[in-house]
């Protein structure tokens, strides 16, 4: 167990910056997910923590001790690779024993430790099979076991579930969570799958274009995304973003024939103080958007045409488009029986408190209603 401090890490490959001024403070025993699209610098970050890559500048500390010049094998990290990196010509047992043999443990100790790990991961039956003949699920477990068995202080997992099929992924996700709880090791988990990150992590570090966007608990990342990228990356289907212009307290929605989104009295003053310029983006999550048929009221209701529906069993995702050409597709999550006809016009309803207000130019979250 150890806490990890990344202080201003920079890594470039030629002209390309892979990681830019990354600072992270990870607590002892914490499970941190590093989330972001491909090429955002997640794996580079992992490789620097493990020591496989040297940062161009910046420092890495484990428990307050600088690690920059400590060789990989001496850092006490376990690494599970995305493609498992199983040594195929060995048996599962030999794979797991590999690190222990290098550390020159006695045969008795090796057997004891492997049996413990195998029991934890339910891998006993596969232990003496040739690694090349293991099922993908068992291979994944062997990869996990191989790094667990050396009892690393820090556990690095690089998209370990991405090769499994959906059902297995759910099973392994639950298992991983249990294992991590049991061992209470500091773990860093790289993924591009927000569901994995949300469900497993104590805190999520969202990265994009080599830059850390936000480092917060899953709920904070969801409810108070720092900027448009985080808002758009977390949540499925993605958040609805509506271009708007701030006009003396209210918002004019360009995609909806310049209809007005009226803001309640208590928020007006605060928004007025916080906004630096008038071009903004209003965000509303699909689950907070309700559709209705009734077209009534003050004429300021937002309406949109149904484009397609996605019945998912427990819910139905409805895709709509406003009548203007510029508008994005709008997503709404409705009940499982909801079946509107394509081309039907629906009214969009949402509560003010479910809105997110972003500055369009800086992309930062300005106000959460």
């Amino acid at each position, binding site marked *: 167990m150890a806490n990890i401090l990344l202080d201003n890490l920079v890594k470039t490959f030629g002209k390309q910056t892979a990681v830019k001024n990354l600072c992270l403070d990870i607590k002892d025993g914490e499970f941190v997910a590093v989330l972001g699209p491909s090429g955002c610098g997640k794996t580079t970050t992992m490789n620097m923590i493990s020591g496989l890559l040297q940062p161009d500048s910046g420092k890495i500390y484990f428990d307050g001790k600088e690690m920059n010049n400590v060789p990989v*094998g001496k850092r006490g*990290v376990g690494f599970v690779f995305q*493609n498992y*990196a199983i*040594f*195929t010509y060995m048996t599962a047992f030999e794979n797991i024993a590999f690190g222990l043999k*290098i550390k020159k443990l006695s045969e008795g100790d090796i057997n004891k430790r492997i049996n413990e790990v195998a029991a934890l991961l339910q891998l006993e039956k596969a232990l003496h099979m040739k690694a090349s003949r293991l099922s993908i699920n068992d291979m994944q477990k062997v990869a996990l076991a*191989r790094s667990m068995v050396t009892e690393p202080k820090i556990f690095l997992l690089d998209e370990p579930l991405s090769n499994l099929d959906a059902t297995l992924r759910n099973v392994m996700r639950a298992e991983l969570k249990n294992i991590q709880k049991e061992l209470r090791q500091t773990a860093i988990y790289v993924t591009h799958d927000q569901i994995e990150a949300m469900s497993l992590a104590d805190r999520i570090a969202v990265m994009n274009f080599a830059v850390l966007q936000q480092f917060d608990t899953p709920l904070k990342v969801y409810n108070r995304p720092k900027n448009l990228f985080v808002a758009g990356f977390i949540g499925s289907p993605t958040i609805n973003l509506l271009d708007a212009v701030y006009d003396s307290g209210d918002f004019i929605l360009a995609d909806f024939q310049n209809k007005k989104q009226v803001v309640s009295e208590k928020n007006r003053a605060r928004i007025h103080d916080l906004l630096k310029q008038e071009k903004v983006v209003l965000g509303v999550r699909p689950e907070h958007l309700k559709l209705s048929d009734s077209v009534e009221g003050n004429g300021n209701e937002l309406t949109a045409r149904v484009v397609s529906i996605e019945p998912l069993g427990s819910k139905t995702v409805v895709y709509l488009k406003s009548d203007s050409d510029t508008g994005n597709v709008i997503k709404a999550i409705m009940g499982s029986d909801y079946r509107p006809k394509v081309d039907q016009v629906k009214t969009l309803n949402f509560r003010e408190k479910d809105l997110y207000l972003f500055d369009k130019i800086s992309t930062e979250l300005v106000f959460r209603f």
Partner: protein
Amino acid sequence: MKSNMIKKILKYVLIIFVAALFFFPIYWMATMAFKPFPEWTAAGEKLYWFPEQPTLDNFREIFVRRTDFKTDISSTATGPIINSLIISSLGTLMAMVLGIMAGYGISRYKAGGQLPFFLLQLRMFPPAAVLIPVMIMWAFLRMVDTWYGLAIIYGVVTLPFSTWLMKTFFDDIPSELDEAAIVDGCSSFGAFLKVVLPLTKGGIASTALFVFILNWSDFLIAFILTDRKWGTIPVYINKLQSATVGQLYGPKAALGLLAAIPPIVFGIMIQKYLVRGLTFGAIKK
């Protein structure tokens, strides 16, 4: 139905034709090795497709020197065979040891930038263009007609092949495997030795066979850089001619037949490694 049949027949005719084309020289050499003088000599009026009176005379001629043909050969073929075995093996060993390490360095650490391509370009020179300078250097170093002199030049000449081939084999092995070993506490060299090398057995075996055949069949370099003492099989075969009969095709064929054995044995020995793919990749595809 009918056109299918015709296609099939055509296919087999073609296969047999191509196979015959490739096997005929081997067949001719193998049969000629057992033909008596009148049957293999060019002076005969008849063409013998098969030895009518099979004999071991040709083998006797190269191993127990007789005086039937007036030649200026002063030794039997035993010496050249041993020379060839020693020199080709040493040259192969040198090319493989250096090539494996260079290939790994180029594949993993991108060492040398354009070096791999540059190495391959070296092979585009006609050997004759560089051989004279090499001979002068070798003479200066007193390495002409020595086993090590020839072994070193063989190692050097085949090094681009072994480096290039091994690089492609190492490229196929995901670098995560080395990294996994390094994270577990291996040194870089330890990871290479314990994890990567066992996975490239097949590549090493086939590259070694390829390099060995190149060395084994070389004539030009051996012809220029050896004299009486360390001549190899191809050089000796070339010497098998007489003032009276000209080329001694029978004995040449006999020695050629023997010379074909080591690569074949080597090939059979490593056959199971030549099946590539089985040892490769536990990795998601």
